[in-house]
C-alpha cells in the first residue's frame, strides 16, 4: 500500500471525489440534506475544505492519483463552531423551503451526538472507498489522524448500525465513552511514540 496524503481546498479537482466518498460513508447523515444524490454530493463538495465547516481540514489519501480515502478532524473545542459553520454553508446553499424541511430531522440527529471531551481531537469524518477496503487504508488514515491529534486523545461518533466501523475502531484501541439511541461516542488515548 502506497498511500499519498494531501490536504485539499474546495477548488481542487479532488473535491468531488472526496465529497462522493464521504457521502457514501455516512448516507444516514447526508440523506438529511435536500435534493437527490448528486445535489447532496454537490452540497458536501462545498463543505469539503470550506472555511469554518467541519470538513475544512480534510486529508485525502490517494493511490496512483486515485482518491481512496479521506478524513477530517479538528480540536474538540471547535466542534460547536464548526457545526455552525457547516449549517451556515448549507443554509445559504439551499432554498428556505428546503431548509425548513430538513431542519427538524437534522436537529434531532445532531441532538444525539453527545458532547465530545473538550481536551480531545475530534475525528469528524473518515471514509475509505469501497474498492480500496481491506488493504489497510483506514488504518493508515487513522495513523495520520493520530499525528494531527498529537498528545490529545481522539474522539469520534459512530452510528450503532455501522458494525464494520465499530469493529475497526475497537481493533484500533478505541473504547466506548458514551452512547445514545443511535450513536456511540468512542475515544482513544494518545499512544506513546
Amino acid at each position, binding site marked *: 500500500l502506497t498511500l499519498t496524503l494531501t490536504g485539499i481546498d474546495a477548488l481542487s479537482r479532488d473535491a468531488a471525489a472526496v465529497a462522493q466518498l464521504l457521502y457514501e460513508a455516512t448516507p444516514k447523515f447526508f440523506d438529511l440534506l435536500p435534493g437527490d444524490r448528486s445535489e447532496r454530493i454537490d452540497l458536501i463538495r462545498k463543505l469539503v475544505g470550506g472555511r469554518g465547516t467541519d470538513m475544512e481540514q480534510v486529508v485525502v489519501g490517494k493511490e496512483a492519483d486515485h482518491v481512496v480515502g479521506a478524513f477530517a478532524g479538528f480540536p474538540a473545542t471547535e466542534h*460547536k463552531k464548526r457545526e*455552525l459553520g457547516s*449549517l451556515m454553508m448549507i443554509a445559504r446553499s439551499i432554498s*428556505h423551503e428546503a431548509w425548513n424541511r430538513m431542519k427538524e430531522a*437534522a436537529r434531532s440527529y*445532531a441532538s444525539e451526538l453527545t458532547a465530545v471531551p473538550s481536551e480531545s481531537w475530534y475525528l469528524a469524518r473518515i471514509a475509505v472507498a469501497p474498492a480500496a477496503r481491506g488493504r489497510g487504508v483506514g488504518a493508515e488514515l487513522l495513523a495520520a489522524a493520530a499525528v494531527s491529534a498529537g498528545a490529545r486523545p481522539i474522539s469520534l461518533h459512530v452510528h450503532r448500525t455501522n458494525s464494520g466501523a465499530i469493529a475497526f475502531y475497537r481493533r484500533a484501541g478505541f473504547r466506548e465513552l458514551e452512547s445514545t439511541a443511535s450513536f456511540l461516542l468512542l475515544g482513544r488515548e494518545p499512544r506513546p511514540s
Partner: protein
Amino acid sequence: MNAAEVRDAVLRSLSSRLKKAGLSEDEIDGDASLIALGVIDSFSFVELLMDLQRDLSVEVDFMELSPDDFSSINGLVRVLSEAS
C-alpha cells in the same frame, strides 16, 4: 442604521430565549458565544442570522467570518452594523 439600533434589534430577537435561559440583557456577557451559553442552538442561530439580515435589510457574508466573530451579542451587533 447605527449600532444602537442594531443592538436593539438583536436583543429584541433574542429576548424570549434570554428569558428562557434565565439571563437578563444586563448580566449576560456580551462577548460570550450564545451557543456556548446555551441560549440558542446552532440551527436556530442560523435562522436568527437570516431573520436579522432580512429585518435590517443587510447582507453579511458570514462564510468570510469565523463564528467566533459573530456568535456573541457584541459580535452580532458589530458585523450587522458594519454591513449596514
